[in-house]
């Protein structure tokens, strides 16, 4: 563990702790009210709010977008408090599920109209807990503290409605109003937590400690203490595993929560069984079945893979297609600059160079060859350089050829390297005459 790891993991851990604080408590309400998926639905509604804001060109990180999502959350809270009917025929979970699906679908439709934003929707699922900033954590902590204080002040009413709505109705409490307040405060929390931790993480933070502790005890204070302890432990473990095994943090913490819940349940089962041996036997039986099922899937996987290969031996995989693609695009062998340099630095014969000059196409390489030829044999070398003046397409190389030729002549005969061959006709003719005069008699 080095300093850097702590620097990265500490904010994430602090965020987890802040989340554990309020979510373990709210989770107990959620479980007792049997509205497990209300957080998903509210989070989706909040996201729909910021997506709508997006449509008006409001940046998702701005305060404007925040008010949008808060406004939508309050609307959602109103829907959920209205959908609770005393003698219900339709379970409230149905309404919640429906709201979730509708909000998600509308968000996609809105995003389709908005300038880019599919990424915005993806972000809601996994969140980005590793990048959380201290500022964000502090704001979240403040918001959660306010909500916590609010719930503490009115704990009698909230708890009564969650535990036993029938009595609340009979006592004449305005259940609808208090439901609305519950969902609004809940929505405040969810809007904040989902934007940093993502839906998946928030969901397990909410539900797992509540399930685990309700199984253990009926006392609220003990449930809370156990839930907080469990949350802290799991966050620490999950973040550590994510670091050690190099896995995305959010999903790792989620998986750790699942694992811890399973172990707790099995532990409780054994602990409470009258005959512990039989309980243990049942567990090992269950595990054996699990392993067998795993084995079936594994062998099935290899079987299907092999079958796929047999059915399409040639085009079985994209990989082989890609391989062909790369083979087609392999470049034909050409003389590399290094090879050429080696050749020129050796002891080439003039005839060799002349042959080479005529086969090579790269103008730079041709120039190098002509230059070397000039060093070896001024007569034929300057002939090819004059050929260069006339035919080379690159003014830079024409100028270089001219510079070399100028070493053996006193005039440039009015040649301008920036002009193409035809415009230099007179100068080239002069050069050719010069060459004839100088070398033809040799």
């Amino acid at each position, binding site marked *: 563990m080095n300093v*850097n790891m702590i620097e990265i993991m500490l904010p994430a851990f602090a965020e987890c702790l802040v989340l554990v604080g309020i979510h373990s408590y709210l989770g107990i309400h959620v479980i007792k009210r049997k509205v497990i998926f209300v957080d998903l639905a509210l989070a989706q509604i909040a996201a729909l709010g910021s997506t709508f804001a997006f449509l008006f060109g409001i940046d998702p990180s701005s305060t404007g977008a925040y008010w949008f999502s808060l406004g939508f959350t309050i609307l959602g809270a109103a829907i959920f408090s209205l959908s609770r009917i005393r003698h219900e025929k339709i379970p409230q979970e149905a309404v919640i599920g429906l709201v979730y699906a509708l909000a998600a679908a509308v968000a996609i439709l809105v995003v389709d109209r908005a300038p880019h934003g599919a990424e915005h929707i993806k972000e809601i699922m996994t969140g980005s807990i590793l990048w959380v900033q201290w500022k964000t954590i502090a704001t979240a902590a403040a918001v959660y503290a306010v909500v916590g204080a609010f719930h503490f002040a009115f704990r009698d009413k909230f708890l009564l409605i969650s535990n036993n709505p029938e009595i609340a109705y009979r006592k004449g409490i305005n259940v609808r109003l208090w439901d609305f307040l519950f969902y609004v405060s809940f929505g405040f929390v969810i809007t904040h937590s989902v934007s940093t931790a993502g839906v998946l993480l928030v969901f397990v933070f909410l539900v797992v400690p509540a399930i685990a502790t309700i199984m253990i005890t009926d006392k609220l204070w003990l449930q809370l203490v156990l839930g907080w302890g469990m949350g802290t432990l799991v966050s620490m473990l999950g973040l550590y595993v994510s670091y050690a095994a190099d896995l995305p943090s959010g999903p790792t913490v989620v998986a750790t929560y699942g694992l811890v819940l399973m172990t707790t349940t099995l532990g409780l089962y054994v602990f409470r069984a009258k005959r512990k041996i039989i309980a243990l036997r049942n567990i090992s039986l269950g595990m054996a079945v699990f392993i067998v099922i795993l084995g079936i899937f594994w062998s099935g996987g290899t079987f299907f893979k092999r079958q796929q290969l047999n059915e399409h031996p040639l085009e079985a995989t*994209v990989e082989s297609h890609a391989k062909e693609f790369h083979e087609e695009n392999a470049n034909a062998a050409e003389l590399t600059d290094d090879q050429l340099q080696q050749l020129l630095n050796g002891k080439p014969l003039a005839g060799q160079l002349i042959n080479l000059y005529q086969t090579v196409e790269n103008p730079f390489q041709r120039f190098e060859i002509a230059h070397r030829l000039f060093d070896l044999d001024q007569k034929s070398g300057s002939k090819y350089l004059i050929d260069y003046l006339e035919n080379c397409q690159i003014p830079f190389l024409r100028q270089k050829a001219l510079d070399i030729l100028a070493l053996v002549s006193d005039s440039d005969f009015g040649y301008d390297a920036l002009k193409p061959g035809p415009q230099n006709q007179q100068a080239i003719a002069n050069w050719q005459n010069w060459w004839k005069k100088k070398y033809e008699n040799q």
Partner: protein
Amino acid sequence: MKKINLGLIVLFGLALVISLFAADQINVVTTLTTYADIARQIGGDKVEVKAIVAGDQDAHFVKPKPSYAVLLSKADLFVETGLDLELWAPTLIDKSGNPRIRSGQPGYVAAADGVKLLEVPSSLDRSQGDVHIYGNPHITTSPLNMKVVAQNISIGLSNVSPENADYFQTRLEEFQDKIDEKMFGGQLVQILGGETLGQLAQSGKLIPFLNSQTFQGKKLSEYLGGWMADMLPLRGKKLVTYHKNWIYFENLFGLEIVGHVEPKPGIPPSPKHVEELIQKIRRDDARVILAANYFDERKVREIAQKVKGVAVIVPLAVGGVPEVQNYFQLVDYWISHLIAAFSQAASS
């Protein structure tokens, strides 16, 4: 009676004009807006071009809509990258029921044909997650690649409309010359030619070459202009990019990308990755973070804040922000924003 007649004649005439125009134009559909822009620049008034992916959308992920299939069913020419970037394209072609634009038909253009690909994987298996198996498909970040793309599009247009081949060829040459000029400046293009400059630039030898050679008594580098000259102060500078979109740009302008924030699109990075990234950013002082504007802007800015860096958020394609309406403006936008960010990072 007279009035009606006049109205009818006008209407009829209008319909005739419209139908003439409609009949004349070649329907081109491209995946990316950048290809659409190039198709317009090559095709001029002979083409009617539409793009499927918006300029600020991620081309990896496009949700299919019925209108796309309708669009394609009427297309004479379809342009896609032809690598594994727009994986949804083949399905879309199938759905459109338009046999003319199937891969291998004259109406199909793979824009990346002949582009020298980078990051070609050495071993072809999928064990590394979603590696692009052909090489990096984000070819549009190098203006030099776009000369090849333009040629491919021009060939495609000439295939479906041979009578206009000369027209397309002229416009193609104009486009390629303009790229060269914007890239290296007119003077240097005149001296060395676009092709030579392109080869040198892509092999990374351009700047040493310009510094070591002279022309008419002056160093060649003094003739350099355009984007290449603008980016000279940033050569060798280190930066971080959000996703692997910028490799061709990096290669061309001699930048050094030391890491990516999110190597696999959509999957949050692991703590180890983040740790290594932050270490690299600190060690190399690579505090500029370049991201395409289809990623979550808030997240990019948060990350930049966290590493005390500067976020540069730019569109990856034409039309990604309102002021970028063609490819030249796009590259201008990238370069001016990068330069501003590096000077901001240096002064903070």
